[in-house]
């Protein structure tokens, strides 16, 4: 399946958002995710099924002003 993760093209086997994080080795309770512009809370990643062409954002705490 071809996805865009944080703006970069990826070819992955994962079929859910939770599986995608594992496959790309993203770990941490502080991560925030969005699928095609909509927030996916951590508790819903297991049920969040992915489709070809989906855009995923994986965000994390960062310094800010």
């Amino acid at each position, binding site marked *: 399946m071809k996805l865009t993760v944080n703006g970069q093209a990826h070819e992955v086997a994962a079929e859910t958002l939770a599986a995608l994080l594992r496959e790309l080795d993203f770990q*941490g309770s502080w991560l925030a995710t969005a699928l095609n512009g909509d927030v996916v809370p951590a508790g819903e990643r297991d049920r969040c099924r992915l489709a070809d062409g989906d855009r995923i954002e994986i*965000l994390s*705490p*960062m*310094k800010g*002003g």
Partner: protein
Amino acid sequence: MLEFYGQKLASRLLLGTALYPSPAVMAEAVKASGTEIVTVSLRRETSGGKAGGQFWSLVQSLGVRVLPNTAGCHSVSEAVTTARMAREVFGTDWIKLEVIGNHDTLQPDVFGLVEAARILASEGFEVFPYTTDDLIVAERLLDAGCRLLMPWCAPIGSARGPQNPDALRSLRGHFPGIPLIVDAGIGRPSHAAAVMELGYDAVLLNTAVAKAGDPVAMAAAFGTAVEAGREAYCAGLLEPRDMAVPSTPVIGMAAFS
């Protein structure tokens, strides 16, 4: 006592966490400033979560509240989505709402700001809107559910200080019961003291501390300046006069000729 959305605060300085020479200097500056609130952001994770995790651990160790921002968002939907993600990650309803309208000036898109504020307030967010010093926009933001306002005094990172003190004074006069925080444009401790002397409740700044020669010392200087400005406002300032007025008594002067 100062309150933001029911949270009592002793310090009137809010500090950003960006642009410091190192995370350790940032942590020391936060401590030296006496601040109880630091701003943070959300960005794309590039190293499997490690970079964000380290930063978040450091911020949590400082024992201060966090105010997540929506910096860099140029649309209502971007800002609203970022705010929702920030709420989940940082575990707070507070959001420093930025909807940027212009790449060069980084001035707020006040129309988008009001719209995003309305959406977020309806979802239970406690919105800290980064806005201009426009009175009517301020009224719209309060109508939208904001219970405090954060007008700029000059463009972000410009260090120019209060460009339009009359507009800031007008906001203070119109909204006596609303917490007002000057956010953006402060370059020197004297700028911070000046807006506090106008009766502003607090100051939010980042670059002026982070890019100082000695950020930790500058953080302390800003902490002192904010307190001095506040004490001066509470003490009642002398208004400027057109003519000289002698301070030494004129009665009882000796006559030598």
